[in-house]
């Protein structure tokens, strides 16, 4: 990448940051981030439905792309932990992506939920497509979407217990058999990256 290109990239990034900042101000968002070309706005959960309605009607983003959640957890049953588990504030983030159907405008709207009180108002009234996405987030994370008329299992069998996408949910196949993909992760003997600082222990 030469200099002029990277300058252009920085400028594009700045333009996106500026756009995100002014949008956050208009909506009264609690915070915003615009790195990696992905604008994210943090919204108070009490204002969730009203904010998304304003984004849909006034900000030209009527396209309901998806809704999902992240489980920010200090401990994980499988996979890797966050970079600094000690500083992590455990929480759920519910993310709704809305975008335009005229240009490339689009943003993530995020509400933070405490783990012991994980509820948020449903947006089915605003976006018909939200029903399935909320049902999925409900069964995968155990989040309560208040007002969703049909909050039952979507993918999982009716009698399935637990919420598979929680970080505390184990992956049974890993208990039965160690990870076969470890060969791709271990540093090769000939690797020219110098002495490996990675923990050679297989992730569970």
């Amino acid at each position, binding site marked *: 990448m030469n200099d002029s290109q990277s300058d252009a990239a920085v400028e594009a990034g700045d333009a996106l940051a500026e756009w995100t900042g002014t949008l956050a101000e208009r909506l009264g968002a609690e915070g915003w981030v615009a790195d990696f070309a992905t604008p994210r706005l943090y919204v108070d959960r009490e204002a969730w439905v009203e904010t998304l309605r304003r984004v849909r009607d006034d900000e030209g983003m009527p396209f309901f792309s998806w809704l999902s959640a992240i489980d920010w957890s200090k401990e994980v049953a499988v996979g890797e932990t966050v970079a600094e588990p000690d500083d992590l504030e455990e929480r759920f983030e519910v993310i709704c992506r809305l975008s335009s*159907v005229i240009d490339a405008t689009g943003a993530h709207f995020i509400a933070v939920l405490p783990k012991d009180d994980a509820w948020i108002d449903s947006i089915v009234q605003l976006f018909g497509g939200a029903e399935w996405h909320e049902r999925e987030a409900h069964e995968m994370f155990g989040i309560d979407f208040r007002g969703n008329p049909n909050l039952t299992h979507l993918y999982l069998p009716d009698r399935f217990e637990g919420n598979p996408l929680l970080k505390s949910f184990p992956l049974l196949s890993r208990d039965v058999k160690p990870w076969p993909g470890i060969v791709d992760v271990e540093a090769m003997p000939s690797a020219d990256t110098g002495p490996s600082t990675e923990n050679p222990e297989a992730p569970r």
Partner: protein
Amino acid sequence: MTMDERLMHRSEVAVSVELQTPDMTLNIGPQHPSTHGVLRLVARVDGEKIQEVEPVIGYMHRGYEKLAEVRTYAQITALVNRIDWVAGFANEIAYIRAVETLVGIEPTERAQWIRLILSEMARISSHLVFMSSYPLELGATTPLFYALRERERVLDLLESVTGGRFHPNFNRVGGVKSAAGGGAETKKVSQDLPVGFFSQTRDAMVKVLAVCDQIDELVTGNELIKARTVDVGVIPADKAVSYGISGPNLRASGVAFDLRKHEAILPYDQVDFEIAVSEHGDCYDRYVVRLEEIRQSSRIILQAIDKIPSGPLQAKVPRILKVPRGQAYVRNENPKGEFGYYVISEGGRMPYRLKIRSTSFSNLSILPWLLKGALIPDLVAIMGSLDFVLGDVDR
């Protein structure tokens, strides 16, 4: 049955058109010839009329979002091209671009063009499956043979480059895999597209355009097809947008939105093509839009093989990929619509979370609304016109 009873029965039949008949629950599936996978519909019907329908999905749920949390970034490409297996190559593009965005590596120019050519081939092959299956669902058998014959040609080309017909697993961070045959000795001299690829592609595109004309003649003006599809299953633009319907299904409703024009992550700005769009949003328009998209894709490929620059297939990438902390969402215009990946990296070897925005999931979610009040004979016509793949619904 006594005479009186029979008379009573007859009189009941005579007036039943005026009366409310009791609703019946009709279970369709989990396996139905036109479901493109394992889907079950539980419908409450009043005679021929569907009052309410509840799709039951999840028969193919493989938990890819959980599996991605225990795989390295490089291993996940093998998972993602199994989501919408009819267009496996296209699924990799947005994922690999999301990882490249986080790492800060630009793919080489030649790799970008190869990605573009192969994703358009994936689009053609996906739409040709629609062109074969949809008329078949409506009772027209012949287009199946024409469409699948040419699809085979396109899949052969895909296979000659990637080594896989359905699951290419061909994209790497910073570029594409060097084509089959590159061993340790040839590592420095990248293996490139196979000999004769461009001339074979030109031939194939001529044949694809010819089969479009054949299907056009057989299907587009066909009275029976029109009777089954015109004004059937109408999705107004505002409903489509509120349900997150994208791709040809959205464009058939009159919304001229195509990520290849509006947010291209491949060099689509350097080729000429038009957004195929229609206005009524019925089953017929969804068919017409897809037929036009095959033609536009061939047009794109023919331009791309003239424009593709020479150069390396891979940018310089460290041997062990370190993905910095960050969150990136990248979406791509897949054959079926907007396909996106939200990659959340905590700086490890595997993503902390990977959200997959699969197209058919949203496209199918409108089914309960769309089928309300429809007739049972229209059910297959409406479902087929949405062109979904269950692997893409269930992930």
